[in-house]
């Protein structure tokens, strides 16, 4: 690991100012960032620790929406009665991330800012049409994710919370990589309050995307069979040591159909 300076921020404004001044990076749980620093893939001159900012912690209802603070740990989301009541699919997704030690440190804000191509949270945010709230603005899910490890965030912009509108139905099913539990393919299916269907896929491509073919099929018939019947185009999907693009394309329909079945 390269040399680094460390600062504790007390408020979001304080953190943004420190980032602008130092050109550093926010530190949330560190579960992705510390590994990247060890590999010298990340070289932030300064770490601005967000863990002491009280506003970023916690889960609350705002009207119809469930609002989860950026520094809320995966484990806290998995065990939250508020989350289990409002959108149980989110608690289940959180419980499926990595392992308990990772869930005890890793945060939803860190996972979204990181936008790992195989991360679970981006699928939930995109399928539920959630809003990513930052210190500067509110970003619709569709505008937030830009590409592999890329988001719309500016260098000194901090995610403060994510606001999930309550869906009619939602479920997430992933085919986990047996070693890391990252998604080989993960599919989040949601029927939103207005009846529209959104299907977001992670793990299959360089970044999370919507499976529009499956969405169209489910809009006509919200059944597992309808999802499974859709042939997903493998072009543009990832091929790596874990799976070919064709296998991933097949898994997208299979995971989508399981998610529909899990929607009940």
């Amino acid at each position, binding site marked *: 690991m390269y040399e680094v300076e460390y600062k504790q921020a007390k408020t979001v404004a304080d953190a943004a100012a420190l980032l602008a001044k130092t050109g550093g990076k926010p530190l949330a749980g560190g*579960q992705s960032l*510390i590994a990247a620093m060890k590999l010298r893939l990340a070289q932030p001159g300064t770490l601005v620790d967000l863990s002491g900012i009280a506003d970023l912690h916690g889960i609350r209802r705002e009207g119809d929406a469930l609002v989860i603070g950026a520094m809320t740990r995966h484990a806290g989301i998995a065990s939250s009665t508020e989350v289990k009541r409002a959108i149980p699919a989110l608690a289940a997704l959180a419980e499926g991330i990595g392992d308990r*030690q990772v869930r005890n440190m890793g945060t939803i804000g860190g996972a979204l800012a990181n936008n790992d191509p195989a991360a679970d949270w981006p699928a939930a945010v995109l399928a539920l049409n959630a809003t990513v709230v930052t210190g500067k603005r509110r970003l619709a899910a569709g505008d937030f994710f830009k590409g592999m490890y890329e988001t719309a965030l500016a260098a000194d912009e901090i995610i403060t919370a994510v606001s999930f509108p309550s869906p009619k139905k939602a479920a997430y099913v992933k085919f986990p990589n047996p*070693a890391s539990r990252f998604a080989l393919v993960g599919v989040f299916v949601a029927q939103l309050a207005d009846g529209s269907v959104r299907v977001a896929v992670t793990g299959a491509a360089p970044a999370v995307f919507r499976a529009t073919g499956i969405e169209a099929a489910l809009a006509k018939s919200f059944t597992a069979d309808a999802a499974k019947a859709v042939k997903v185009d493998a072009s543009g999907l990832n091929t790596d040591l874990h799976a070919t693009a064709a296998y991933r394309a097949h898994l997208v329909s299979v995971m989508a159909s399981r998610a529909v079945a899990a929607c009940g």
Partner: protein
Amino acid sequence: MGIQIAMTVNGKAVDADVDPRTLLVDFLRINLGLTGTHVGCDTAQCGACTVHLNGRAIKACNVLAVQAQGAAIVTIEGLSPDGVLHPMQAAFKDCHGLQCGFCTPGMVMSALDLVERHPGADEATIREQLEGNLCRCTGYQNIVRAVQQGAAAMAK
């Protein structure tokens, strides 16, 4: 530039001036000499470095010492301050839940968090919740039995 940190480790207040990039596991092992916490992979995969930070199991190779500022840390050494094995440690010994023993401190620390969050966990839950701890020797059967026996002993 060094940074001043203070925390409690196994109930004792400690403070030190550390390089900010110091990993918590290195702080525990090198600065404090608590070598019961092992380093198996150094990449957050194996769980050998598991300790408790404010009562929750974490991988100390993937956390900076500065992130434990003000926290209460418990390591394997903290479980048996008077030399009497903790019921979970005793269960590992009893059930032959270890062979080389390298993974064992992490397994025990992880098991204690598991028992706390999932009292009365069945075998499937125990296996799932130990996902973050790898053992190259035992084949896990006796580890799972040890956790069940340890949990039962702790509930008494």
